[in-house]
């Protein structure tokens, strides 16, 4: 074993590539052996090649607090995470099942509200939520699909079991990094691809395109599809451009669109107005239409909701989808699967304590030092408190927050997230990671092979969000015996 791997130890965690005994897992054997065969110098050189590729490809993302500095190289780790196709197929089915149930739920909530009437989900937590948009009542999008693009976060516990941590149904991002990470890995370690059968990920824009085409209100061979971005200063602008280009669609900002008296949406082109059929929106619904939501929004398009409600334009994800993207509602997803699909949930939820329930709240307050507390309605890792990593003062602060607004907090046991070998400071060390696959749903349901693996680059850290200093890895779903 060469020096960079010396003293690699999985500890009490499940490691994605290495067993507790220290040998490579079957699917990862070649990859691990390859990386172990590299000397410290060679590893450095590969890393330099990857960094050059990133710089040249211009992968960058924004963190809001960094103000004007809108370029920052995306931290990338070149050692891929490897999962066997057999194991993945089960996960993939579980994700598809989940997304179908979530869409049944949203469609039900804005129409008949059967699940509330049957008392499976308490009505007050749905109808009283900020994410419930009365403007969407009575709308029936095609195929009953509201959340067309879902980015669910998966983690593994110390035994290697997958859990769904949350379902992102509003404007989940990261898919472009999934595609680019593969590109970079190909440049940094081309030899590895020779002996592996790795499921490709670069057809994602095509799958997205097919999904969106199916939504078009007009029957046309090539409907007009646009990607609606808040603009260059948004953290995911790179991705918006990437997807628009991959689909041959227009990348538009609110000022490029107008809604006519006929309730159709038009884009302003050099030939005059051109009708838009499908909008893939990457802008928060609250900013989407100043007529319907926040009147002060300058990012949106006045009249867009009107156009959508009258069926003249399709919007993905549909406004209002966020009603199911809430950490309290999350706790009920297994019940939804049983209720709507009459199936047994294939993927586990993380056990979740709802602070609105008296019994749960008492437990949370008593055990706050051992739990992870999350606000029900935030994303991007903001406002989370990891009990074991926090001070007594923080525990007290969150206890007060919970008592003040119990509906807005949930708590979960601290999971021992899985790790994978990661090249940090000249050594290969275990770092915690999660996985965000993307699920597309309109006429059909489709799941990405793998997804975006995010890795917490700081030792011992469990926070993988790019906005919190996380990095990412290529994710391989490999077929056959490696």
């Amino acid at each position, binding site marked *: 074993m060469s020096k960079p791997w010396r003293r690699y130890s999985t500890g009490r965690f499940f490691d994605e590539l290495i067993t507790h005994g220290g040998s490579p897992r079957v699917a990862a054997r070649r990859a691990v052996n390859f990386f172990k065969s590299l000397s410290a110098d060679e590893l450095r050189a590969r890393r330099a090649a990857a960094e050059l590729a990133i710089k040249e490809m211009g992968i960058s993302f924004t963190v809001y607090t960094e103000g004007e500095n809108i370029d920052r190289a995306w931290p990338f780790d070149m050692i891929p995470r490897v999962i066997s196709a057999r194991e993945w197929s089960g996960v993939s089915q579980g994700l598809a099942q989940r997304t179908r149930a979530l869409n049944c739920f949203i469609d039900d909530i804005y129409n008949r509200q059967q699940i509330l009437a049957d008392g499976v989900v308490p009505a007050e937590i749905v109808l009283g939520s900020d994410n419930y948009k009365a403007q969407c009542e009575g709308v029936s999008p095609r195929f009953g699909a509201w959340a067309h693009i879902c980015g669910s976060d998966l983690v593994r516990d110390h035994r290697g079991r997958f859990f769904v941590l949350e379902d992102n149904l509003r404007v989940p991002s990261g898919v472009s990094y999934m595609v680019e990470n593969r590109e970079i890995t190909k440049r940094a370690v081309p030899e590895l691809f020779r002996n592996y059968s790795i499921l490709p990920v670069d057809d994602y824009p095509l799958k997205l395109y097919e999904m969106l085409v199916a939504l078009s209100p007009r029957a046309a061979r090539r409907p007009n599809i646009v990607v609606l971005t808040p603009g260059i200063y948004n953290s995911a602008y790179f991705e918006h451009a990437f997807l628009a*280009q991959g689909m041959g669609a227009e990348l538009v*900002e609110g000022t490029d669109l107008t809604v006519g008296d006929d309730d159709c949406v038009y884009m*302003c082109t050099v030939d*005059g107005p051109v009708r838009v059929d499908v909008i893939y929106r990457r802008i928060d619904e609250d900013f989407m239409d100043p007529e319907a939501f926040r009147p002060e929004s300058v990012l949106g398009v006045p009249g867009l909701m009107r156009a959508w409600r009258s069926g003249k334009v399709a919007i993905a994800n549909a406004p209002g989808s966020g009603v199911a993207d809430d950490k309290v509602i999350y706790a009920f997803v297994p019940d939804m699967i049983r209720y709507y699909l009459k199936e047994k949930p294939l993927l586990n939820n993380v056990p979740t304590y709802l602070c609105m329930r008296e019994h749960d709240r008492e437990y949370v307050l008593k055990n706050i030092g051992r739990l992870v507390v999350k606000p029900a309605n935030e994303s991007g890792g903001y406002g989370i408190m990891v009990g074991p990593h926090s001070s007594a003062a923080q525990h007290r602060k969150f206890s007060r927050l919970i008592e003040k607004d119990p509906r807005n907090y949930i708590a979960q046991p601290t999971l021992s997230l899985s790790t994978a070998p990661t090249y940090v400071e000249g050594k290969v060390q275990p770092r915690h990671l999660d996985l965000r696959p993307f699920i597309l749903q309109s006429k059909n349901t489709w799941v990405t092979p793998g997804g975006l693996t995010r890795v917490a680059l700081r030792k011992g850290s469990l926070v993988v969000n790019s906005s919190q200093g996380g990095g990412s890895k290529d994710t391989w779903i490999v077929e056959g015996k490696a």
Partner: protein
Amino acid sequence: MSMLSSVAERLFWMSRYLERTQDTARLIQAYNHLIMDIPKGAEPPWDIMIDILDAQPLFRARFKAGSEQNVLKFLIADDKASCGIPFAVKAARENVRTTRDVLPEEAWELVNELHLFVEAHAGNASGRRNRHDFLSEVISRCQMINGLLGASLPRDHAYGFIKLGRLVECADMTTRIMDVGAGDIMERAGRFGAIDPLLWGALLQALSAAAAYRREVGPIVEKDAALNFIFLSSTFPRSIKYFVRETRKELMRLNNHDLAIRAVERLRRRLTRLDAEHFTSGELHDYIDDFQLQLTSLDAAIQATWFSWKNV
């Protein structure tokens, strides 16, 4: 498929900034060559380049003396000077960043690389030793981008607006160089007669016209022929005549082109009034001044017709 007005506008400006980058680099190169061949005392001042770029106020706010070092620092290393290379490259990159979806994927990589190159090396490139290599590299990277766009863009709106941007910027630069450069040589009125051919040659160099001129006119460079060549050559792609013809062609392919075509027609009529043999340096200046006014009105017509019609 049509094109978003906002995208068309950014492509137009991306193209203008790339052309500006290249033209400025060529201008400095040509002046650099010239200065080494000319006896001391006879050379045009360094800040003639600042005059050409119409940037005296901006320049004087930063530097007192129009010395070689200052002028080159201003044009090569200062990323706030809107007529300098780093600024133009940055502006081009910002426009590509927001139009990546209509450009070939490598366009972003190449423009980004150009930006990184300039960012890394501009600081050391204003001295005489590294200047040449730096400028050559900038020029060849610009050409690479032009080559990529020329070879891989479908001949649709994207190509059209990129071409228009390049044509307009090129005409703007050509007339500026002629105005100041030719004016300077003519004002000398034979005081340093022996070096006049050198100066005219350098002028052609700055416009990348030297080789084309030799082939079409011959090896002897003198005023009338040079002026006629730059304005009226029908084959040289940086001549004004060529600009008018190609611009007209591109505009005809667009809808609602009446306003812009009228502006081009005015330019075409101006062109017939060029009288190289009899113009004094003052008359040449007035002529070019008027021409530039018409160029500005063409620019405004393009803006109003295709970029901001929604606000009209």
